[in-house]
């Protein structure tokens, strides 16, 4: 059984019908990449799964219907979220950002500091004064602090230097050994490195699902679906 099942999911924002009945599954373990051109609804999909936008249809997580559940209850069931643009709390220190994310009695600081040793040194620094890469570390660390069963990760390499992109890919590889990841990512190099399955969206609809490597090997299809080759 899939860990996350999405059926006939619709999202309307104002006059726009952003998601038009998308359907896909996220299997337990490994990384499922959610791909597509800019503006096709990838971020909205993650936000809909998190309950951050009004949605209609069915979202099932671990067999339970979470479609009408408030965000905080979805998260408490073991869902972690790394938003696009990081959304760290700029006026809080790194330590405070992490402390705020603690849900379990034993938060996994060992794992977090093992992956991001820099965060230990910068604990007292205001998150708003960190570089983009460091803020991304905080955003990912917040999601890893708890023993989540699935992480929704939205464009973690956006705006990062090639060196940091490679670092994020390394972290995603390590994370995927511990938990299931649904990853929105534009960098196909990162997708090739970490993803097992792929779901491709186009104008609010799912147009392809299947193994990621098969998709990426088919250059004409990648060009057609994502506008890159």
């Amino acid at each position, binding site marked *: 059984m899939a860990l996350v099942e999405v059926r006939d999911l619709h999202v309307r924002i104002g006059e726009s019908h952003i998601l038009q009945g998308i359907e896909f599954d996220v299997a337990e373990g490994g990384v499922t990449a959610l791909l597509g051109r800019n503006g096709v609804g990838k971020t909205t999909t993650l936000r809909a799964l998190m309950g*951050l936008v009004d949605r209609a249809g069915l979202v099932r997580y671990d067999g339970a219907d979470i479609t009408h559940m*408030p*965000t905080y209850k979805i998260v408490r069931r073991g869902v972690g979220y790394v938003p696009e643009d990081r959304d760290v*709390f700029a006026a809080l220190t790194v330590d*405070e950002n992490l*402390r*705020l994310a603690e849900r379990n009695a034993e938060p996994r600081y060992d794992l977090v500091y093992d992956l991001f040793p820099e965060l230990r040194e910068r604990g007292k620094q205001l998150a708003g004064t960190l570089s983009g890469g460091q803020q991304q570390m905080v955003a990912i660390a917040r999601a890893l602090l708890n023993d989540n069963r699935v992480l929704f990760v939205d464009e973690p390499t956006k705006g990062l230097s090639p060196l940091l992109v490679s670092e994020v890919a390394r972290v995603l590889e390590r994370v995927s050994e511990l938990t299931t990841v649904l990853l929105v990512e534009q960098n196909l190099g990162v997708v090739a490195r970490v993803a097992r399955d792929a779901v491709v969206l186009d104008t609010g609809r799912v147009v392809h699902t299947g193994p990621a490597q098969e998709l990426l090997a088919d250059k004409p299809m990648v060009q057609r679906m994502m506008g890159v080759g």
Partner: protein
Amino acid sequence: MSTFVLLTITGLGLGAMYFLIASGLSLIYGLMGVLNFAHGAFLTIGAYAFWFTETKLDSLSIWPRFLLAAVVAIVVTTAFSALVELVMIRPLYGRHIEQVLVTVGLALAITALVTAIWGNDARVIAAPKWLGETTTVVGAHIPNDRWTEIGTAVLVLFGLEAFLKRTRYGLIIRAGVENRAMVTALGIDVRKAFTLVFAIGGLAVGIAAVLSSVYFSTVDPQHGTALVIFAFIVVVIGGLGSLRGTAMAAIVVGLVQQYANYYASSGLGDLSVVLLLGLVLLVRPRGLSGSFA
């Protein structure tokens, strides 16, 4: 010199009251985006709870009567604020027009209710004699209630700052002021923080209700509405959501009001504050603090 000192301490006392009223308004707006127009009515409720309790405890000597009535007033405003959030504001988050209509309506209803029950006449507050006595500083005879107001506001400021910095709920509130959606995406039921912030606002306004009743010696149905206008100005000048900014702005507004009333012309104090508001909005549209809490 003594006149200047008297004006300064009186201005600081007035600023202290503005801070106590405005701190709740500022936190409520900063975290929830709710402009609570009923906040002044909460002050009126607190002032009447204080006066009413005092009249019912007249067998006690003045200090226990005063302190018990103060506690009752603070408990009433705290509980009432939390109740208003739970019953009237919670169903309307994200619906700003409806929130404005509900809070304005509530303010009008409370004022009308108080008038219907106790009439329009001002009710005299009984305060311990010490509060009306003076302490001489650099030749100026300062009423002790001014020192009480300033001291209480400083305690509330430090208490709130300690709460915001050192407790988990404080952390949630500071984070929520920045990005409410992300707080919920960390698995936190931010609505509990909303109720708590309303209760904190109610507690501060309850303290302000007691002190303002002593300051003016009377309470009347317009007690809160008159004061809350300046509190709103303080919040805007200080920067929405910033506690320190609110404290700074409250001091500035209290002093400007006093100095203008004495050195320019009596009655010019209020106008000066409005001009100050206009100036700050032109020069620093996000207020003196320039940032959120």
